């Protein structure tokens, strides 16, 4: 079918045409996913780290739980947060629903188990001598954590990027908590769903291509940055 071709042409047209609506959609996506991933990394990496490095009762259970949460459906996260922040919910007063902040909250919950679980698996397999070496050289706890992270930089980056990919591509949470409000909470994925719902498949695909191009650019940047810090 020529949907794909049409979509490509459309994508190029959109990018070249550069209308403000596209700009708004893209910037909502970027802003929300960037913030939620950053938060998930700040919480998830040290969390995953301490789970991996320590021996404690229930460790196995926590890892199983984390792996289970990888199967957290966006709709469920959406419903859950909705039930908290809707007008009739316990913290409805704040008026978070249908704001980018609500999207961030939902995406954070979605990304957190991914970043944490993958950090655990990144750290768990590593050479036991690394930690010992850091200690013998006088590193304190924080310093030990950071050298371990730096030794497994690639895997930790992968964990964060997997988290980012998940939230950048997700639609359920954004739709339910953001509301897909044009010019405010409409992001790329909700726009895609919207176009697809109208039967505008090639437009939807074009937006999909734009989304992937942005993800690609981000990954190239990250990879460049990663290389520089090696």
């Amino acid at each position, binding site marked *: 079918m020529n949907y794909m071709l049409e979509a490509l042409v459309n994508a190029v047209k959109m990018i070249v045409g550069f209308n403000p609506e596209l700009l708004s959609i893209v910037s909502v996506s970027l802003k929300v996913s960037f913030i939620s991933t950053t938060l998930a990394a700040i919480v998830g990496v040290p969390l995953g780290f301490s789970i991996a490095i320590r021996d404690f009762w229930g460790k196995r259970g926590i890892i199983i739980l984390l792996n289970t949460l990888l199967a957290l459906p966006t709709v469920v996260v959406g419903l859950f947060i909705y039930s908290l922040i*809707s*007008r009739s919910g316990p913290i409805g007063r704040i008026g978070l*629903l*249908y704001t980018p902040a609500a999207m961030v909250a939902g995406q954070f919950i979605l990304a957190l188990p991914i970043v944490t679980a993958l950090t655990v698996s990144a750290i768990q397999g590593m050479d036991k001598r690394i930690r010992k070496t850091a200690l013998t050289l006088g590193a304190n706890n924080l310093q030990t954590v950071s050298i371990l992270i730096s030794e497994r930089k690639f895997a930790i980056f992968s964990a964060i990027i997997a988290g980012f990919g998940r939230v950048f591509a997700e639609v359920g949470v954004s*739709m*339910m908590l953001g*509301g*897909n*409000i*044009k010019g405010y909470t*409409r992001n790329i994925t*909700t*726009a895609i*769903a*919207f176009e*697809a*719902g*109208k*039967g*505008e*498949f090639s437009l939807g695909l074009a937006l999909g291509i734009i989304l992937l191009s942005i993800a690609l650019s981000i990954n190239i940047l990250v990879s460049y940055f990663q290389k520089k810090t090696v």
Partner: protein
Amino acid sequence: RAEQIRIRMATTTSTENSGLLNELFPPFEKMFSVKVDVIAVGTGKALKLGENGDVDVVFVHARKAEDNFVEEGFGVNRRDVMYNDFVIVGPEDDPAFIRGNDGVEALTKIFYNKSFFVSRGDESGTHKKEKELWKIKDIEPEGKWYLETGQGMGATLQLADEKQAYTLIDRGTYIAYKGKVNLVILCEGDKRLFNPYGIIAVNPKRHPHTNYIHAMALIGWVTSPEGQEIIGDFKKGGKVLFHPNAYE
């Protein structure tokens, strides 16, 4: 599963959500030993699926688009099946004072008052109806007060409730959400708010693989006296949702 004859019908989410199809189809399925697979999507997409030959029959409510669909040769044998009506809902205190039975007047008041109005903005039957109504007074709704959700009716209603805004909604969905939202019906009964449903077979000349025979059987069933009776008797929350009109 392979022996079972199946036909596919694309319909709108609101139709399926109403629960009507669960009453309307089983007798037909039994009678013809056929299974109806319901694909519930937006109106635009439902018609697109018909256009692409992915379904055998479409059951939607967007009169103009339906006519186009038939004119362009994608569908054949369109029949009227029933209608329900749209209502305008809004906050109890009705800041734009739209209470009444004139839908166009109500929208005009909302426009001048710049009260929040939530539109589905998704080219669905409901959205098309809404645009039709604005068009009557040549109003171009735009601005901070006019929120486009691009979502289904339920989500749109919730959003309107959250924002304490007005919105146009089919009665069936509103009834389904009653008790979950605080918005109340402020405007109803206008003939211009009626919402006719049509059923169309996908053109077998264009898509020979479609199950045209059974599609026609289904069309026959829903427009038959028995089918029409089931529609007329279907109630939700004690209220009749759809008015059969195959014979009008």
